[in-house]
Protein backbone atom coordinates (compact mmCIF):
# COMPACT_ATOMS: atom_id res chain seq x y z
CA UNK A 1 0.00 0.00 0.00
CA UNK A 2 1.17 3.54 -0.79
CA UNK A 3 2.30 5.63 2.16
CA UNK A 4 -0.44 7.60 3.92
CA UNK A 5 1.44 10.85 3.23
CA UNK A 6 1.53 10.11 -0.52
CA UNK A 7 -2.20 9.29 -0.49
CA UNK A 8 -2.94 12.46 1.42
CA UNK A 9 -0.94 14.62 -1.00
CA UNK A 10 -2.76 13.08 -3.97
CA UNK A 11 -6.05 13.97 -2.30
CA UNK A 12 -4.99 17.58 -1.93
CA UNK A 13 -3.53 17.83 -5.44
CA UNK A 14 -6.35 15.98 -7.15
CA UNK A 15 -8.94 18.20 -5.47
CA UNK A 16 -7.31 21.35 -6.81
CA UNK A 17 -6.54 19.77 -10.20
CA UNK A 18 -10.07 18.57 -10.85
CA UNK A 19 -11.78 21.71 -9.58
CA UNK A 20 -9.31 23.93 -11.45
CA UNK A 21 -10.01 21.99 -14.62
CA UNK A 22 -13.76 22.30 -14.19
CA UNK A 23 -13.49 26.07 -13.71
CA UNK A 24 -11.25 26.39 -16.75
CA UNK A 25 -14.09 24.91 -18.82
CA UNK A 26 -15.95 28.20 -18.28
CA UNK A 27 -13.30 30.36 -19.90
CA UNK A 28 -14.97 32.39 -22.65
CA UNK A 29 -18.48 31.25 -21.69
CA UNK A 30 -19.34 32.99 -18.41
CA UNK A 31 -22.46 35.15 -17.95
CA UNK A 32 -20.53 38.39 -17.36
CA UNK A 33 -17.04 39.42 -18.44
CA UNK A 34 -15.98 40.09 -14.86
CA UNK A 35 -17.11 36.58 -13.85
CA UNK A 36 -15.21 35.07 -16.77
CA UNK A 37 -12.06 36.77 -15.52
CA UNK A 38 -12.72 35.82 -11.89
CA UNK A 39 -13.38 32.14 -12.69
CA UNK A 40 -10.14 32.00 -14.67
CA UNK A 41 -8.32 33.59 -11.73
CA UNK A 42 -9.60 30.95 -9.36
CA UNK A 43 -8.75 28.20 -11.84
CA UNK A 44 -5.23 29.60 -12.18
CA UNK A 45 -4.76 29.61 -8.40
CA UNK A 46 -5.95 26.02 -8.22
CA UNK A 47 -3.69 24.85 -11.04
CA UNK A 48 -0.76 26.56 -9.32
CA UNK A 49 -1.61 24.79 -6.07
CA UNK A 50 -1.87 21.50 -7.96
CA UNK A 51 1.68 21.91 -9.22
CA UNK A 52 2.89 22.26 -5.63
CA UNK A 53 0.85 19.41 -4.12
CA UNK A 54 1.56 16.92 -6.88
CA UNK A 55 5.26 17.79 -7.08
CA UNK A 56 5.47 17.09 -3.35
CA UNK A 57 3.50 13.86 -3.84
CA UNK A 58 6.01 12.75 -6.47
CA UNK A 59 8.89 13.63 -4.20
CA UNK A 60 7.39 11.71 -1.26
CA UNK A 61 6.66 8.71 -3.47
CA UNK A 62 10.28 8.64 -4.61
CA UNK A 63 9.55 6.86 -7.91
CA UNK A 64 10.62 9.76 -10.10
CA UNK A 65 7.13 10.90 -11.08
CA UNK A 66 6.64 14.61 -11.71
CA UNK A 67 3.49 16.63 -11.04
CA UNK A 68 2.65 16.31 -14.76
CA UNK A 69 3.18 12.52 -14.69
CA UNK A 70 0.72 12.30 -11.83
CA UNK A 71 -1.81 14.62 -13.46
CA UNK A 72 -1.65 13.20 -16.98
CA UNK A 73 -0.70 9.53 -16.65
CA UNK A 74 -3.03 8.12 -14.01
CA UNK A 75 -6.42 6.58 -14.69
CA UNK A 76 -9.67 7.16 -12.81
CA UNK A 77 -9.08 4.58 -10.05
CA UNK A 78 -5.84 6.29 -9.05
CA UNK A 79 -7.47 9.69 -8.60
CA UNK A 80 -8.26 10.81 -5.06
CA UNK A 81 -10.46 13.87 -5.57
CA UNK A 82 -13.77 14.45 -3.80
CA UNK A 83 -16.87 13.45 -5.75
CA UNK A 84 -18.20 16.99 -5.28
CA UNK A 85 -15.42 18.47 -7.35
CA UNK A 86 -15.71 16.15 -10.34
CA UNK A 87 -19.42 16.96 -10.76
CA UNK A 88 -20.09 18.74 -14.06
CA UNK A 89 -20.34 22.53 -14.04
CA UNK A 90 -24.07 22.63 -14.72
CA UNK A 91 -25.31 26.20 -14.75
CA UNK A 92 -23.42 29.09 -13.18
CA UNK A 93 -25.33 28.58 -9.94
CA UNK A 94 -24.21 24.97 -9.66
CA UNK A 95 -20.60 25.92 -10.37
CA UNK A 96 -20.58 28.62 -7.72
CA UNK A 97 -22.46 26.51 -5.16
CA UNK A 98 -19.93 23.69 -5.63
CA UNK A 99 -17.18 26.25 -5.24
CA UNK A 100 -18.70 27.71 -2.09
CA UNK A 101 -19.26 24.38 -0.35
CA UNK A 102 -15.65 23.43 -1.07
CA UNK A 103 -14.11 26.85 -0.29
CA UNK A 104 -15.79 26.86 3.11
CA UNK A 105 -14.14 23.50 3.82
CA UNK A 106 -10.82 24.33 2.20
CA UNK A 107 -10.26 27.50 4.21
CA UNK A 108 -10.49 25.46 7.43
CA UNK A 109 -8.49 22.59 5.98
CA UNK A 110 -5.63 24.79 4.82
CA UNK A 111 -5.56 26.81 8.04
CA UNK A 112 -5.02 23.55 9.92
CA UNK A 113 -2.50 22.27 7.38
CA UNK A 114 -0.49 25.48 7.67
CA UNK A 115 0.38 24.24 11.19
CA UNK A 116 1.39 20.79 9.92
CA UNK A 117 4.29 18.98 11.58
CA UNK A 118 5.61 18.42 8.03
CA UNK A 119 7.21 21.72 7.01
CA UNK A 120 6.71 21.04 3.28
CA UNK A 121 2.97 20.53 3.77
CA UNK A 122 2.78 23.62 5.97
CA UNK A 123 4.50 25.74 3.31
CA UNK A 124 2.16 24.72 0.47
CA UNK A 125 -0.86 25.16 2.74
CA UNK A 126 0.22 28.61 3.91
CA UNK A 127 0.59 29.82 0.33
CA UNK A 128 -2.72 28.27 -0.74
CA UNK A 129 -4.62 29.51 2.32
CA UNK A 130 -4.49 33.14 1.26
CA UNK A 131 -5.92 32.26 -2.15
CA UNK A 132 -8.61 30.06 -0.62
CA UNK A 133 -9.80 32.85 1.66
CA UNK A 134 -10.20 35.09 -1.35
CA UNK A 135 -12.07 32.35 -3.23
CA UNK A 136 -14.42 31.93 -0.26
CA UNK A 137 -15.13 35.66 -0.09
CA UNK A 138 -16.11 35.62 -3.74
CA UNK A 139 -18.13 32.42 -3.79
CA UNK A 140 -19.96 33.36 -0.57
CA UNK A 141 -20.88 36.73 -2.03
CA UNK A 142 -22.15 35.10 -5.21
CA UNK A 143 -24.26 32.55 -3.36
CA UNK A 144 -25.80 35.30 -1.23
CA UNK A 145 -26.42 37.69 -4.12
CA UNK A 146 -28.06 35.07 -6.36
CA UNK A 147 -29.94 33.38 -3.51
CA UNK A 148 -31.33 36.78 -2.50
CA UNK A 149 -31.79 37.98 -6.10
CA UNK A 150 -34.80 37.28 -8.31
CA UNK A 151 -37.24 34.40 -7.95
CA UNK A 152 -35.43 32.63 -10.77
CA UNK A 153 -31.94 33.11 -9.35
CA UNK A 154 -33.19 32.01 -5.93
CA UNK A 155 -34.77 28.88 -7.42
CA UNK A 156 -31.63 28.00 -9.32
CA UNK A 157 -29.39 28.42 -6.27
CA UNK A 158 -31.72 26.29 -4.15
CA UNK A 159 -31.74 23.60 -6.84
CA UNK A 160 -27.94 23.69 -6.98
CA UNK A 161 -27.71 23.35 -3.21
CA UNK A 162 -30.16 20.44 -3.17
CA UNK A 163 -28.27 18.70 -5.96
CA UNK A 164 -24.82 19.09 -4.43
CA UNK A 165 -25.65 18.66 -0.74
CA UNK A 166 -25.26 14.85 -0.77
CA UNK A 167 -21.69 15.34 -2.00
CA UNK A 168 -20.67 17.71 0.80
CA UNK A 169 -20.40 15.08 3.55
CA UNK A 170 -17.47 13.29 1.91
CA UNK A 171 -15.23 16.24 2.79
CA UNK A 172 -15.52 15.30 6.46
CA UNK A 173 -15.26 11.53 6.23
CA UNK A 174 -12.21 10.12 7.87
CA UNK A 175 -10.35 6.90 7.04
CA UNK A 176 -7.11 5.14 8.00
CA UNK A 177 -5.04 7.59 5.93
CA UNK A 178 -6.55 10.58 7.75
CA UNK A 179 -6.12 8.94 11.11
CA UNK A 180 -2.46 8.10 10.52
CA UNK A 181 -1.74 11.70 9.46
CA UNK A 182 -3.72 13.18 12.32
CA UNK A 183 -1.73 11.08 14.78
CA UNK A 184 1.53 12.27 13.25
CA UNK A 185 0.36 15.89 13.41
CA UNK A 186 0.62 16.25 9.63
CA UNK A 187 -3.04 16.95 8.90
CA UNK A 188 -6.28 17.47 10.80
CA UNK A 189 -8.84 14.70 11.04
CA UNK A 190 -11.38 16.07 8.53
CA UNK A 191 -14.24 15.34 10.93
CA UNK A 192 -12.92 18.06 13.22
CA UNK A 193 -13.45 20.69 10.51
CA UNK A 194 -17.19 20.11 10.30
CA UNK A 195 -18.33 22.42 13.11
CA UNK A 196 -16.65 25.51 11.65
CA UNK A 197 -17.94 24.63 8.18
CA UNK A 198 -21.46 24.22 9.53
CA UNK A 199 -21.34 27.65 11.15
CA UNK A 200 -20.09 29.31 7.98
CA UNK A 201 -22.60 27.56 5.74
CA UNK A 202 -25.57 28.11 8.03
CA UNK A 203 -24.89 31.83 8.20
CA UNK A 204 -24.44 32.17 4.46
CA UNK A 205 -27.52 30.15 3.54
CA UNK A 206 -29.54 32.31 5.88
CA UNK A 207 -28.28 35.49 4.25
CA UNK A 208 -28.99 33.94 0.86
CA UNK A 209 -32.55 32.99 1.90
CA UNK A 210 -31.75 29.37 1.01
CA UNK A 211 -33.06 26.35 2.91
CA UNK A 212 -30.45 23.96 4.22
CA UNK A 213 -31.37 20.48 2.97
CA UNK A 214 -32.53 18.26 5.79
CA UNK A 215 -30.84 14.97 4.96
CA UNK A 216 -27.30 14.15 5.99
CA UNK A 217 -26.75 11.40 3.45
CA UNK A 218 -23.26 11.57 1.97
CA UNK A 219 -21.95 9.85 -1.15
CA UNK A 220 -18.49 8.38 -0.74
CA UNK A 221 -15.76 6.90 -2.90
CA UNK A 222 -13.94 9.87 -4.40
CA UNK A 223 -11.21 10.58 -1.91
CA UNK A 224 -10.49 6.88 -1.45
CA UNK A 225 -10.73 6.20 -5.19
CA UNK A 226 -13.10 3.30 -4.47
CA UNK A 227 -15.89 4.57 -6.73
CA UNK A 228 -15.68 7.79 -8.70
CA UNK A 229 -18.57 9.19 -10.70
CA UNK A 230 -18.82 8.55 -14.45
CA UNK A 231 -17.88 12.17 -15.05
CA UNK A 232 -14.25 11.87 -14.03
CA UNK A 233 -13.31 9.52 -16.86
CA UNK A 234 -14.62 11.93 -19.46
CA UNK A 235 -12.70 14.77 -17.88
CA UNK A 236 -9.49 12.75 -17.94
CA UNK A 237 -10.06 11.63 -21.53
CA UNK A 238 -10.05 15.30 -22.50
CA UNK A 239 -7.37 16.50 -20.14
CA UNK A 240 -4.91 13.69 -20.78
CA UNK A 241 -5.39 13.35 -24.53
CA UNK A 242 -2.10 14.85 -25.72
CA UNK A 243 0.34 13.20 -23.30
CA UNK A 244 -1.45 9.87 -23.87
CA UNK A 245 -1.58 10.14 -27.66
CA UNK A 246 2.02 11.37 -28.00
CA UNK A 247 3.85 9.78 -25.06
CA UNK A 248 7.32 10.68 -26.37
CA UNK A 249 6.65 14.35 -26.99
CA UNK A 250 7.83 17.29 -24.91
CA UNK A 251 5.50 20.26 -24.90
Amino acid at each position, binding site marked *: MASPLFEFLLRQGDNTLVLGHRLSEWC*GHAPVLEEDIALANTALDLIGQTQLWLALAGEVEGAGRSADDLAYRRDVWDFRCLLLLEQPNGDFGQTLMRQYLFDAFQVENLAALACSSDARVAAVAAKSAMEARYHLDRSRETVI*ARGDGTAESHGRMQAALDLLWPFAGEMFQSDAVDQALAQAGVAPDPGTLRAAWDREVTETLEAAMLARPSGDFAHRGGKTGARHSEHLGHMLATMQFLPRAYPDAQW
Partner: protein
Amino acid sequence: MYAQMVKSDVGQDDPARLAAFQARIDAGEKIEPKDWMPEGYRKTLIRQIGQHAHSEIVGQLPEGNWITRAPSLERKAILLAKVQDEAGHGRYLYCAAETLGVSRDALTEMLIDGRMKYSSIFNYPTLTWADMGAVGWLVDGAAIMNQVPLQRTSFGPYARAMIRVCKEESFHQRQGFDIMMKMAKGTAAQKKMAQDALNRFWFPSLMMFGPSDKDSVHSAQSMAWKIKMNTNDELRQKFVDQTVPQAAYLGLTVPDDTIAWNAAKGGYDFAEPDWSEFFDVLKGNGPCNSERIAARRKAWEDGAWVRAGMLAHAEKKKARKMAAE
Protein backbone atom coordinates in the same frame (compact mmCIF):
# COMPACT_ATOMS: atom_id res chain seq x y z
CA MET B 1 -5.69 43.83 -36.78
CA TYR B 2 -8.95 43.26 -35.05
CA ALA B 3 -10.94 45.97 -36.82
CA GLN B 4 -11.55 45.29 -40.49
CA MET B 5 -13.26 47.38 -43.14
CA VAL B 6 -14.59 49.91 -40.68
CA LYS B 7 -16.69 52.44 -42.55
CA SER B 8 -16.22 56.04 -41.59
CA ASP B 9 -19.21 58.31 -41.12
CA VAL B 10 -19.12 61.91 -42.17
CA GLY B 11 -21.84 63.96 -40.50
CA GLN B 12 -23.36 67.38 -41.09
CA ASP B 13 -21.22 69.29 -38.63
CA ASP B 14 -20.39 73.00 -38.64
CA PRO B 15 -17.32 73.52 -40.90
CA ALA B 16 -15.61 75.90 -38.46
CA ARG B 17 -15.90 73.41 -35.59
CA LEU B 18 -14.74 70.62 -37.85
CA ALA B 19 -11.67 72.62 -38.85
CA ALA B 20 -10.85 73.40 -35.20
CA PHE B 21 -11.26 69.72 -34.33
CA GLN B 22 -8.98 68.65 -37.16
CA ALA B 23 -6.41 71.22 -36.05
CA ARG B 24 -6.34 69.69 -32.58
CA ILE B 25 -5.75 66.26 -34.08
CA ASP B 26 -3.06 67.56 -36.41
CA ALA B 27 -1.34 69.16 -33.41
CA GLY B 28 -1.21 65.72 -31.78
CA GLU B 29 -3.71 66.54 -29.03
CA LYS B 30 -5.78 63.76 -27.50
CA ILE B 31 -9.56 63.95 -27.82
CA GLU B 32 -11.28 63.11 -24.55
CA PRO B 33 -14.87 61.87 -24.10
CA LYS B 34 -16.22 65.22 -22.88
CA ASP B 35 -14.67 67.18 -25.74
CA TRP B 36 -16.75 68.18 -28.74
CA MET B 37 -16.29 65.73 -31.60
CA PRO B 38 -17.92 65.33 -35.01
CA GLU B 39 -20.76 62.80 -35.04
CA GLY B 40 -18.90 60.87 -37.73
CA TYR B 41 -15.81 60.56 -35.55
CA ARG B 42 -17.91 59.27 -32.67
CA LYS B 43 -19.83 56.77 -34.78
CA THR B 44 -16.74 55.50 -36.58
CA LEU B 45 -14.91 55.02 -33.30
CA ILE B 46 -17.82 53.16 -31.73
CA ARG B 47 -17.80 50.84 -34.71
CA GLN B 48 -14.03 50.37 -34.59
CA ILE B 49 -13.57 50.01 -30.82
CA GLY B 50 -16.67 47.83 -30.59
CA GLN B 51 -15.38 45.55 -33.33
CA HIS B 52 -12.04 45.41 -31.60
CA ALA B 53 -13.66 44.55 -28.25
CA HIS B 54 -15.83 41.86 -29.84
CA SER B 55 -12.74 40.38 -31.47
CA GLU B 56 -11.10 39.99 -28.07
CA ILE B 57 -14.17 38.26 -26.68
CA VAL B 58 -14.87 36.00 -29.65
CA GLY B 59 -11.10 35.50 -29.83
CA GLN B 60 -11.28 33.72 -26.47
CA LEU B 61 -13.13 30.85 -28.13
CA PRO B 62 -10.59 29.32 -30.56
CA GLU B 63 -7.90 29.26 -27.89
CA GLY B 64 -10.35 28.36 -25.15
CA ASN B 65 -10.96 25.28 -27.27
CA TRP B 66 -7.60 23.87 -26.05
CA ILE B 67 -7.50 24.97 -22.40
CA THR B 68 -8.98 21.67 -21.24
CA ARG B 69 -6.54 19.74 -23.46
CA ALA B 70 -3.33 21.64 -22.74
CA PRO B 71 -0.57 19.03 -22.45
CA SER B 72 0.98 20.02 -19.11
CA LEU B 73 0.00 21.93 -16.00
CA GLU B 74 2.30 24.78 -16.97
CA ARG B 75 0.94 25.01 -20.52
CA LYS B 76 -2.59 24.94 -19.17
CA ALA B 77 -1.87 27.80 -16.78
CA ILE B 78 -0.15 29.88 -19.47
CA LEU B 79 -2.95 29.38 -21.98
CA LEU B 80 -5.67 30.06 -19.43
CA ALA B 81 -3.90 33.24 -18.33
CA LYS B 82 -3.60 34.30 -21.94
CA VAL B 83 -7.27 33.79 -22.74
CA GLN B 84 -8.13 35.56 -19.50
CA ASP B 85 -6.02 38.51 -20.67
CA GLU B 86 -8.14 38.64 -23.81
CA ALA B 87 -11.27 38.93 -21.68
CA GLY B 88 -9.49 41.76 -19.88
CA HIS B 89 -8.67 43.46 -23.18
CA GLY B 90 -12.32 43.19 -24.18
CA ARG B 91 -13.21 44.83 -20.90
CA TYR B 92 -10.85 47.81 -21.39
CA LEU B 93 -12.16 48.27 -24.91
CA TYR B 94 -15.84 48.09 -23.95
CA CYS B 95 -15.06 50.70 -21.28
CA ALA B 96 -13.42 52.91 -23.92
CA ALA B 97 -16.49 52.50 -26.17
CA GLU B 98 -18.80 53.32 -23.25
CA THR B 99 -17.18 56.75 -22.94
CA LEU B 100 -18.66 57.43 -26.40
CA GLY B 101 -22.18 56.80 -25.15
CA VAL B 102 -22.89 53.17 -25.99
CA SER B 103 -23.30 50.51 -23.31
CA ARG B 104 -21.50 47.18 -23.23
CA ASP B 105 -24.86 45.39 -23.20
CA ALA B 106 -25.98 47.24 -26.34
CA LEU B 107 -22.73 46.36 -28.09
CA THR B 108 -23.07 42.72 -27.04
CA GLU B 109 -26.57 42.55 -28.44
CA MET B 110 -25.34 44.01 -31.73
CA LEU B 111 -22.64 41.34 -31.89
CA ILE B 112 -25.09 38.54 -31.26
CA ASP B 113 -27.68 39.70 -33.77
CA GLY B 114 -25.03 40.27 -36.44
CA ARG B 115 -25.18 44.06 -36.64
CA MET B 116 -21.56 44.29 -35.53
CA LYS B 117 -18.56 42.28 -36.70
CA TYR B 118 -15.41 40.86 -35.19
CA SER B 119 -12.15 39.91 -36.87
CA SER B 120 -12.44 37.29 -39.63
CA ILE B 121 -9.55 35.29 -38.13
CA PHE B 122 -11.60 33.96 -35.23
CA ASN B 123 -13.87 32.11 -37.61
CA TYR B 124 -11.14 29.56 -38.29
CA PRO B 125 -10.95 26.38 -36.22
CA THR B 126 -8.08 25.38 -33.91
CA LEU B 127 -7.45 21.73 -34.68
CA THR B 128 -4.22 20.77 -32.93
CA TRP B 129 -2.08 21.99 -30.07
CA ALA B 130 0.26 23.61 -32.61
CA ASP B 131 -2.58 25.98 -33.42
CA MET B 132 -2.07 27.50 -29.96
CA GLY B 133 1.44 28.32 -31.13
CA ALA B 134 0.31 29.58 -34.54
CA VAL B 135 -2.41 31.79 -33.07
CA GLY B 136 0.05 33.40 -30.65
CA TRP B 137 2.80 33.75 -33.21
CA LEU B 138 0.80 34.80 -36.28
CA VAL B 139 -2.55 36.14 -35.08
CA ASP B 140 -1.22 38.05 -32.08
CA GLY B 141 1.75 39.05 -34.22
CA ALA B 142 -0.56 40.55 -36.85
CA ALA B 143 -2.69 42.22 -34.17
CA ILE B 144 0.37 43.86 -32.65
CA MET B 145 1.33 45.35 -36.02
CA ASN B 146 -1.90 47.30 -35.90
CA GLN B 147 -2.15 47.96 -32.19
CA VAL B 148 1.30 49.40 -31.60
CA PRO B 149 0.61 52.46 -33.79
CA LEU B 150 -2.88 52.74 -32.26
CA GLN B 151 -1.23 53.60 -28.94
CA ARG B 152 -0.85 57.04 -30.59
CA THR B 153 -4.44 57.22 -31.83
CA SER B 154 -6.27 60.52 -31.31
CA PHE B 155 -8.99 59.29 -28.95
CA GLY B 156 -7.55 59.26 -25.43
CA PRO B 157 -9.40 56.29 -23.89
CA TYR B 158 -8.66 54.12 -26.95
CA ALA B 159 -4.97 55.06 -26.95
CA ARG B 160 -4.67 54.29 -23.24
CA ALA B 161 -6.46 50.95 -23.65
CA MET B 162 -4.05 50.09 -26.47
CA ILE B 163 -1.03 50.80 -24.29
CA ARG B 164 -2.20 48.23 -21.76
CA VAL B 165 -3.20 45.75 -24.45
CA CYS B 166 0.12 46.00 -26.29
CA LYS B 167 2.15 45.18 -23.20
CA GLU B 168 0.31 41.90 -22.83
CA GLU B 169 0.07 41.08 -26.51
CA SER B 170 3.81 41.06 -27.06
CA PHE B 171 4.10 38.63 -24.18
CA HIS B 172 1.44 36.45 -25.83
CA GLN B 173 3.26 36.48 -29.12
CA ARG B 174 6.46 35.27 -27.46
CA GLN B 175 4.51 32.49 -25.76
CA GLY B 176 3.07 31.46 -29.10
CA PHE B 177 6.48 31.42 -30.71
CA ASP B 178 7.77 29.34 -27.80
CA ILE B 179 5.08 26.71 -28.42
CA MET B 180 5.93 26.69 -32.14
CA MET B 181 9.60 26.23 -31.34
CA LYS B 182 8.91 23.26 -29.07
CA MET B 183 6.74 21.72 -31.76
CA ALA B 184 9.06 22.47 -34.67
CA LYS B 185 12.03 20.99 -32.82
CA GLY B 186 10.01 18.12 -31.35
CA THR B 187 9.00 14.67 -32.63
CA ALA B 188 8.04 14.05 -36.26
CA ALA B 189 4.36 14.25 -35.29
CA GLN B 190 4.86 17.57 -33.54
CA LYS B 191 6.73 19.00 -36.49
CA LYS B 192 3.93 17.89 -38.77
CA MET B 193 1.39 19.62 -36.52
CA ALA B 194 3.47 22.81 -36.57
CA GLN B 195 3.70 22.86 -40.37
CA ASP B 196 0.00 22.08 -40.70
CA ALA B 197 -0.85 24.96 -38.37
CA LEU B 198 1.28 27.37 -40.39
CA ASN B 199 -0.34 26.12 -43.61
CA ARG B 200 -3.82 26.78 -42.28
CA PHE B 201 -3.16 30.09 -40.53
CA TRP B 202 -0.85 31.85 -43.00
CA PHE B 203 -3.36 33.28 -45.44
CA PRO B 204 -6.10 33.95 -42.86
CA SER B 205 -3.45 35.94 -40.92
CA LEU B 206 -2.68 38.04 -44.01
CA MET B 207 -6.42 38.64 -44.38
CA MET B 208 -6.55 40.12 -40.88
CA PHE B 209 -5.23 43.40 -42.29
CA GLY B 210 -8.15 43.65 -44.72
CA PRO B 211 -7.97 44.15 -48.50
CA SER B 212 -5.88 46.92 -49.95
CA ASP B 213 -7.33 50.26 -48.89
CA LYS B 214 -4.97 52.63 -50.60
CA ASP B 215 -7.87 54.12 -52.59
CA SER B 216 -10.51 53.90 -49.87
CA VAL B 217 -12.39 57.06 -48.85
CA HIS B 218 -13.20 55.58 -45.46
CA SER B 219 -9.56 54.86 -44.74
CA ALA B 220 -8.48 58.33 -45.80
CA GLN B 221 -11.00 59.90 -43.39
CA SER B 222 -9.99 57.56 -40.54
CA MET B 223 -6.33 58.31 -41.18
CA ALA B 224 -6.98 62.06 -41.10
CA TRP B 225 -8.71 61.55 -37.75
CA LYS B 226 -5.78 59.40 -36.56
CA ILE B 227 -7.97 56.48 -35.66
CA LYS B 228 -6.25 54.48 -38.37
CA MET B 229 -2.53 55.01 -38.49
CA ASN B 230 -1.29 52.99 -41.49
CA THR B 231 -2.73 51.51 -44.65
CA ASN B 232 -3.60 47.84 -44.65
CA ASP B 233 -0.90 47.13 -47.24
CA GLU B 234 1.82 48.79 -45.17
CA LEU B 235 0.95 46.71 -42.13
CA ARG B 236 0.66 43.48 -44.13
CA GLN B 237 4.08 44.06 -45.68
CA LYS B 238 5.60 44.69 -42.27
CA PHE B 239 4.04 41.50 -40.94
CA VAL B 240 5.35 39.39 -43.82
CA ASP B 241 8.83 40.90 -43.48
CA GLN B 242 8.89 40.03 -39.81
CA THR B 243 7.38 36.56 -40.09
CA VAL B 244 9.16 34.97 -43.06
CA PRO B 245 12.58 34.88 -41.33
CA GLN B 246 10.95 33.54 -38.15
CA ALA B 247 9.42 30.66 -40.12
CA ALA B 248 12.85 29.90 -41.58
CA TYR B 249 14.34 29.91 -38.07
CA LEU B 250 11.70 27.36 -37.03
CA GLY B 251 12.50 25.20 -40.06
CA LEU B 252 8.95 25.59 -41.35
CA THR B 253 7.82 26.46 -44.86
CA VAL B 254 5.51 29.39 -45.50
CA PRO B 255 2.78 28.00 -47.81
CA ASP B 256 3.50 30.47 -50.63
CA ASP B 257 5.90 29.49 -53.45
CA THR B 258 6.12 33.06 -54.67
CA ILE B 259 7.79 34.48 -51.58
CA ALA B 260 11.04 36.14 -52.56
CA TRP B 261 13.18 38.95 -51.19
CA ASN B 262 12.79 42.11 -53.24
CA ALA B 263 15.88 44.23 -52.68
CA ALA B 264 14.41 47.19 -54.55
CA LYS B 265 11.52 47.61 -52.10
CA GLY B 266 13.44 46.26 -49.13
CA GLY B 267 10.78 43.68 -48.36
CA TYR B 268 9.39 40.34 -49.46
CA ASP B 269 7.14 39.82 -52.43
CA PHE B 270 4.31 37.50 -51.54
CA ALA B 271 1.00 36.16 -52.86
CA GLU B 272 -2.28 37.85 -52.00
CA PRO B 273 -4.73 35.75 -50.03
CA ASP B 274 -7.94 34.59 -51.72
CA TRP B 275 -10.10 37.63 -51.08
CA SER B 276 -13.27 35.84 -52.09
CA GLU B 277 -12.73 33.59 -49.06
CA PHE B 278 -12.29 36.69 -46.89
CA PHE B 279 -15.59 38.17 -48.08
CA ASP B 280 -17.32 34.83 -47.56
CA VAL B 281 -16.07 34.77 -43.96
CA LEU B 282 -17.25 38.36 -43.39
CA LYS B 283 -20.66 37.42 -44.73
CA GLY B 284 -20.93 34.67 -42.15
CA ASN B 285 -19.70 31.74 -44.23
CA GLY B 286 -16.39 31.05 -42.51
CA PRO B 287 -15.75 27.59 -41.06
CA CYS B 288 -16.81 28.60 -37.54
CA ASN B 289 -18.98 31.74 -37.81
CA SER B 290 -22.16 30.10 -36.66
CA GLU B 291 -20.46 28.24 -33.79
CA ARG B 292 -18.73 31.38 -32.54
CA ILE B 293 -21.92 33.45 -32.50
CA ALA B 294 -23.89 30.56 -31.02
CA ALA B 295 -21.35 30.31 -28.19
CA ARG B 296 -21.60 34.04 -27.46
CA ARG B 297 -25.39 33.93 -27.64
CA LYS B 298 -25.52 30.97 -25.28
CA ALA B 299 -23.28 32.70 -22.73
CA TRP B 300 -25.42 35.84 -22.95
CA GLU B 301 -28.80 34.12 -22.76
CA ASP B 302 -27.85 31.49 -20.18
CA GLY B 303 -26.31 34.25 -18.08
CA ALA B 304 -29.40 36.49 -18.07
CA TRP B 305 -30.64 35.16 -14.73
CA VAL B 306 -27.20 35.63 -13.17
CA ARG B 307 -27.08 39.28 -14.20
CA ALA B 308 -30.69 39.89 -13.17
CA GLY B 309 -30.07 38.21 -9.80
CA MET B 310 -27.06 40.39 -9.17
CA LEU B 311 -29.00 43.59 -9.92
CA ALA B 312 -32.01 42.55 -7.85
CA HIS B 313 -29.80 41.76 -4.87
CA ALA B 314 -28.01 45.11 -5.17
CA GLU B 315 -31.40 46.90 -5.21
CA LYS B 316 -32.64 44.96 -2.19
CA LYS B 317 -29.45 45.69 -0.30
CA LYS B 318 -29.79 49.38 -1.04
CA ALA B 319 -33.45 49.40 0.04
CA ARG B 320 -32.61 47.58 3.28
CA LYS B 321 -29.83 50.02 4.00
CA MET B 322 -32.12 52.99 3.41
CA ALA B 323 -34.84 51.48 5.60
CA ALA B 324 -32.33 51.02 8.41
CA GLU B 325 -31.11 54.61 8.25
